[in-house]
């Protein structure tokens, strides 16, 4: 952007922060907003984590904890799902990483609409406050399951059917407004504010992943908005968009003719792209982590970009694979199964390219790299079970079982979270100027990685055994053998340990932010632009008096003949390391 060098001493940036309040609270600086987003998301994520541990206590030791009755259990399930998917992962990847990385990685002074960016955070915070408020309304939060299917979501018998569901829908609508304001910013910044020389095909894959995911969010969140508004009308104003005529508690309801299936279509038209709204930034970030920590150019950069775009496009034509058990015309089932399996092609390309990037690389097993490698393993496993569930005839018997719980926790719970952790360990020195503690990092990594495997891997077996998901307890079911109960207790113990070790991570964040070892401007010797800021942490405006000029891609590692094993993106052209002409390996 054409910020010009001041000619008069009284010239100043249009939003240069002056006081404590404008610096840290009503800040329009993308880096401060990113940290605000990140801290809020992590805080609400800890609530989601506690809820999951409470659910595990009930499943592992049924009856031991009397306060977790069936009603509360379903409320925990619902809130855990919604918090983790929307308020933690979506907010953290787009609002946190997107806000921090996009302007720094493309060489911009800030987002193009800083005021809108600030509003985006405050709307997000409001949506979180409203969400948490649902714990304190009469009847408690909704227990309709995170998919909020009508008619049960608003009928008596479902926990939180009076107030909980209303508060949940209002919170979601506010979140969508926040995500839209943020999203317009990210897209416009990538399109309009790249520095000189930063062509689209020189952007780091992190930016590509976040950019594409933002476009998905802008197109898919309206579907959630539509279904949320219409359900709110059904609940509060008595319309019948989704509510059929039915007898509830012995009385004929006032609704008639509504279509619950319509809600499912709308919800999953949002819900499936949502998986990729979380996964694409993870793909992008993990590509950069692997490349930096293996000191090697990403293999097949352009293929990686096109794979991200292809996955984004395909994610809009697979939604009904979540509805195989709802019943549909067999030709539709065939179509959605086929489109689902086709997504495996670009996804597999990405996995192969990560492997080939590692091949003969100078692999440094730093904490970010460990998380990146763990992501590959976890995502691969979760992706493969997705191939099972994408087939109609396999999905129908497995759909109601723990196999599905195992699948989606591996692929969209644990895998993206591992990238979140890897990304935080990687960029923390840029954000705070200090390194996270390495020993605590290793402890956090090994317990989280091995622990989540120990939790979710056995669930595949429990699912194949026929153990149903969504049940409050499994006592008194003859077909569930004693070994399954033992497995459940074991999973619970591990889940508690994994939950506890996240506190170590939070401690590490807090302690290292103030007491950690000082980091240089570029501790990982990375080539991408965010490590080339004149100050660390970067000042408001990011780039000093002059914007950087970019001469190559972000992956100039181990270039033969170069004095160091990386060449920064803004080093002069004569230093070499230009991107290969056709996107192959250099």
């Amino acid at each position: 952007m054409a910020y010009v060098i001041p000619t008069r001493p009284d010239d100043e940036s249009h939003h240069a922060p002056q006081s404590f309040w404008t610096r840290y609270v009503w800040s329009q600086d993308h880096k401060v907003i990113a940290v605000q987003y990140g801290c809020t998301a992590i805080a609400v994520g800890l609530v989601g984590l506690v809820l999951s541990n409470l659910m595990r206590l009930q499943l592992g030791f049924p009856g031991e904890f009397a306060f977790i009755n069936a009603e509360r259990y379903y409320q925990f399930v619902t809130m855990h799902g919604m918090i983790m998917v929307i308020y933690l992962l979506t907010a953290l990847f787009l609002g946190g990483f997107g806000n921090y990385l996009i302007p720094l990685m493309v060489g911009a002074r800030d987002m193009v609409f800083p005021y809108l960016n600030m509003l985006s955070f405050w709307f997000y915070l409001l949506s979180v406050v409203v969400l948490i408020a649902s714990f304190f309304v009469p009847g408690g939060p909704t227990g309709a399951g995170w998919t909020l299917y009508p008619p049960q979501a608003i009928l008596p018998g479902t926990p939180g059917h009076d107030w909980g569901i209303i508060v949940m829908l209002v919170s979601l609508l506010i979140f969508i407004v926040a995500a839209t304001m943020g999203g317009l910013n990210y897209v416009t910044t990538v399109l309009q504010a790249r520095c000189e020389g930063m062509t689209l095909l020189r952007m780091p894959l992190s930016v590509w992943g976040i950019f594409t995911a933002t476009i998905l969010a802008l197109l898919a969140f309206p579907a959630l908005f539509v279904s949320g508004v219409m359900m709110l009308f059904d609940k509060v104003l008595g319309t019948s968009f989704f509510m059929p005529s039915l007898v509830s508690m012995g009385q004929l309801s006032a609704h008639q003719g509504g279509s619950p299936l319509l809600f499912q279509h709308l919800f999953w038209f949002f819900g499936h792209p949502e998986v990729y709204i979380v996964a694409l930034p993870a793909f992008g970030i993990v590509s950069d982590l692997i490349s930096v920590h293996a000191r090697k150019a990403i293999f097949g950069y352009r293929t990686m970009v096109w794979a991200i775009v292809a996955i984004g496009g395909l994610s809009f034509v697979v939604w009904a694979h979540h509805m195989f058990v709802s019943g549909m015309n067999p030709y539709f089932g065939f179509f959605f199964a086929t489109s689902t399996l086709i997504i495996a092609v670009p996804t597999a390309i990405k996995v192969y390219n990560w492997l080939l990037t590692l091949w003969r690389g100078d692999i440094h097993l730093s904490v970010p790299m460990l998380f990146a490698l763990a992501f590959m393993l976890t995502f691969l496993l979760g992706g493969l079970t997705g191939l099972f569930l994408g087939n109609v005839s396999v999905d129908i018997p497995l759909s109601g079982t723990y196999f599905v719980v195992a699948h989606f926790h591996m692929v969209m719970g644990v895998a993206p979270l591992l990238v979140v952790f890897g990304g935080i360990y990687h960029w923390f020195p840029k954000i705070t100027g200090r390194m996270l503690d390495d020993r605590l990092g290793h402890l956090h990594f090994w317990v989280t990685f091995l622990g989540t495997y120990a939790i979710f891997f056995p669930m595949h077996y429990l699912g194949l055994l026929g153990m149903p998901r969504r049940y409050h307890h499994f006592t008194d079911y003859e077909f569930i053998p004693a070994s399954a109960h033992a497995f459940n207790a074991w999973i619970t113990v591990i889940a508690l340990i994994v939950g506890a070790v996240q506190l170590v991570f939070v401690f590490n964040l807090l302690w290292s932010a103030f007491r950690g070892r000082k980091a240089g401007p570029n501790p990982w010797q990375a080539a991408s632009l965010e490590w080339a800021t004149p100050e660390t942490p970067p000042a408001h405006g990011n780039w000093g008096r002059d914007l950087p000029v970019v001469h190559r891609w972000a992956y100039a590692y181990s270039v033969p003949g170069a004095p160091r094993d990386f060449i920064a993106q803004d080093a002069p052209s004569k230093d070499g390391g230009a991107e290969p002409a056709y996107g192959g390996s250099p």
Partner: protein
Amino acid sequence: MNTSAVQLQAPDEATRERALSAGLWAFLVVVTSLFSLFLTAYVMRLSSPDATAVEMPRQLWISTSVLILGSLMMHRRQLNAGGACAMGFLVAQWWAWQALQAEHVVLTGNPAASFFYLLTALHGLHVAGGLVAWANVQASPTPGRIAMCARYWDYLLMLWIVLFAAFTWITPEVARVICGVSP
């Protein structure tokens, strides 16, 4: 975090307008997605047996004319007249609601009526949002910013025509044919 500031001038107007223009296009894509999904839901819901057609109130022709006039005014760079037309449109829409209410067409009961009220309200909110932007442009009415107002006004006009056409022509019978449902 480092919150010290580099003293820099704000970007020049041309750069700012390019960014605003790109942001506006992106926003229009989002609104298109929103209303397309609503219209898809409208067709699916109207194909059910309990839906009956609602006769559109005559006032809608007035509101449509006012909205067309608003777009024309914006293209002639008559910022104030364009904004006034948008306000007039909202008033006319309100009048149309009153007319429907007087005929006992209520929000609940018939999905065609539910969708009519919901979608006109949402479209009206987008017009009102446009007026907020319009009020901001009043502060610095550059040709570029007025052109963006005109673009948004044109878009809302087209959107309204699509909605009006859907309310008029996609009756429950037509929706049943589209969805392949036999009555």
